[in-house]
């Protein structure tokens, strides 16, 4: 009798192996993605007639004479993502503090739900809203910034002059809106874990609400907030269709270090030309840039998870 009970039943073995297999599959998936992209990218990289990392050229029409480099893509991708972080980081911090420290407790939940709704809007809708509705409103602001601060290279005249609509700036603002829910929800989670004793201690010493936040909540949640922002950065680097719809691609223009430039990011470059993947070598050029994007987002997410994991400490 006892032996019967301790025996592993076949149903159990099957179920355990099945679920473990699914876990292993997910682990393998990341490796497979990297591997397949690499294998497909190598022939194109070998056929590339310019330096992949330092060239700004992008001509893949003739498989016999491929010329593609990622310098411009990398700069535009990083630039637009950083612009979006500049907007999203302080606002998300404000919302997270609002939801955890300021909002009446009964309203905190519905408010958080409202912010989460932002994440449910499909990104193509954000893109279309960004270029058709928001861009015309932002253009005068851009022109004003350019007029008054144009002597600083970051605000100089870009290649989307004079209409200032499909700029890195516009894309950055829209990306920022898309990042708000992800940065907010994670920061909120961390802020909520601030030990009550710390808060009560600060209150007992006569601290104002802001002083409580500055001396207990912020120091406690700093790492989590930074991790959340990095996660947002990862999202911004890889966001495709919103950027594709918004960013104006100038003919022959190069990225010129101003936020009023147009251009293409890794993701938007691939998306724009995806319908013309007509031969494996040319498609390989895009897969190669996709691989760079994969490595980039992997590194950023890896870092973010390491920071958040440390803080949560489970």
């Amino acid at each position, binding site marked *: 009798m006892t032996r019967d009970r301790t025996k592993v039943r076949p149903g159990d073995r099957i179920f355990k192996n099945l679920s473990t297999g699914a876990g292993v599959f997910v682990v393998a998936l990341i490796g497979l993605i990297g591997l397949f992209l690499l294998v497909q990218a190598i022939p194109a990289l070998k056929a590339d007639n310019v330096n992949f990392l330092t060239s700004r050229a992008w001509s893949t029409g003739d498989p016999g004479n491929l010329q593609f480099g990622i310098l411009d893509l990398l700069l535009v991708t990083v630039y637009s993502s950083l612009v979006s972080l500049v907007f999203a980081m302080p606002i998300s911090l404000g*919302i997270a503090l609002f939801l955890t420290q300021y909002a009446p407790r009964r309203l905190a939940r519905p408010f958080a739900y409202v912010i989460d709704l932002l994440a449910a809007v499909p990104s193509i809708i954000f893109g279309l809203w960004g270029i058709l509705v928001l861009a015309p409103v932002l253009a005068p602001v851009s022109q004003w910034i350019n007029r008054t601060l144009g002597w600083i290279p970051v605000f100089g005249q870009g290649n989307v002059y004079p209409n200032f609509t499909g700029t890195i700036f516009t894309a950055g603002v829209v990306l920022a809106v898309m990042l708000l829910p992800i940065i907010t929800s994670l920061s909120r989670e961390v802020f909520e874990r601030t030990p009550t004793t710390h808060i009560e201690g600060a209150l007992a010493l006569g601290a104002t609400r802001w002083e409580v936040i500055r001396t207990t909540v912020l120091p406690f949640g700093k790492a989590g907030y930074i991790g959340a922002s990095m996660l947002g950065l990862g999202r911004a680097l890889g966001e495709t269709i919103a950027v594709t719809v918004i960013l104006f691609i100038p003919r022959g223009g190069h990225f010129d270090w101003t936020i009023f430039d147009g251009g293409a990011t890794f993701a938007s470059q691939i998306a724009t030309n995806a319908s013309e993947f007509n031969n494996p070598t040319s498609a390989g050029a895009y897969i190669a840039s996709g691989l760079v994007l994969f490595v980039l987002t992997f590194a950023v997410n890896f870092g973010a998870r390491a920071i958040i994991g440390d803080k949560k400490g489970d």
Partner: protein
Amino acid sequence: MTSTLSETERPAISPAFQQISTARKVKNGVATVLVWLSFLVAVVPLVWVLYTVVANGIKRIPYTNWWTQDFGSVLSDEVGGGVLHAIIGTLEQGLVCAVVAVPLGLLVAIYLVEYGRGTRLAKLTTFMVDILSGVPSIVAALFVYALWITTLGMPRSGFAVSLALVLLMIPVVVRSAEEMLRIVPDDLREASYALGVPKWKTIMKVVLPTALSGIISGIMMALARVMGETAPLLVLVGYSAYVNWNLFDHEQAALPLLMNNERATNTMDPGSVGFDRIWGAALTLVLIIALINLVATVVSRLVAPKKK
């Protein structure tokens, strides 16, 4: 206690705590205003986007042919036709994606909560699920392109899109299911084991049903999310203005792809045909997503464990 005030006249807060310097008061006030402001700033785009979609999209969708026809018979600048072809594509691709991603995601979550708890493989799996959720949709699309189209030689099709959506849906399903399974009380499991029920049966008959309502709403959210994805559509299937039920071959439309196609081929002046079509399709997509969420809420209420 030499206070001259009687018990009732004494202020509730002792004077020591009222002596807050003006600078500290001002800082506190500024912080409060900024924090409230940042919340309002986030609400503005949400309301604005939804207003744009509804106000511009409402023009065409009340007509029945919007729901029953495709754009195949009308010119790109001609009023009329409908988005049936795109609705079919969106639902088909989403459904097939769910059929693959949901069991896989559930199994991973079961592994993490029931079998792997705390092991190194479980930690690695959790980490990789997190990384997978950060993989850009365009990279997922390129991976399927490299695997399905280049390596296996299959055609660009709606099914290839479904495969890419699976990659994007799995992490969301795993996360939400894992969270729901974790809050199932261990007492329930132990009671079942004590009755001699095998572990796998305990999971199937006790743990899953208890967590089912939460899992269903998580799955529906994930489904709604991937149905709005555009990047895989651009890489893995061509746009067609005609109804195509065949998931495995030829061009197939989907709502996001239709919107992108109209944007690329039509002038975008407010009131023009392309403009109306884009926002009509956007509103249709939002309505479908809202409907899915509504169904999820109702179903998860129905299957939720009954409370006395």
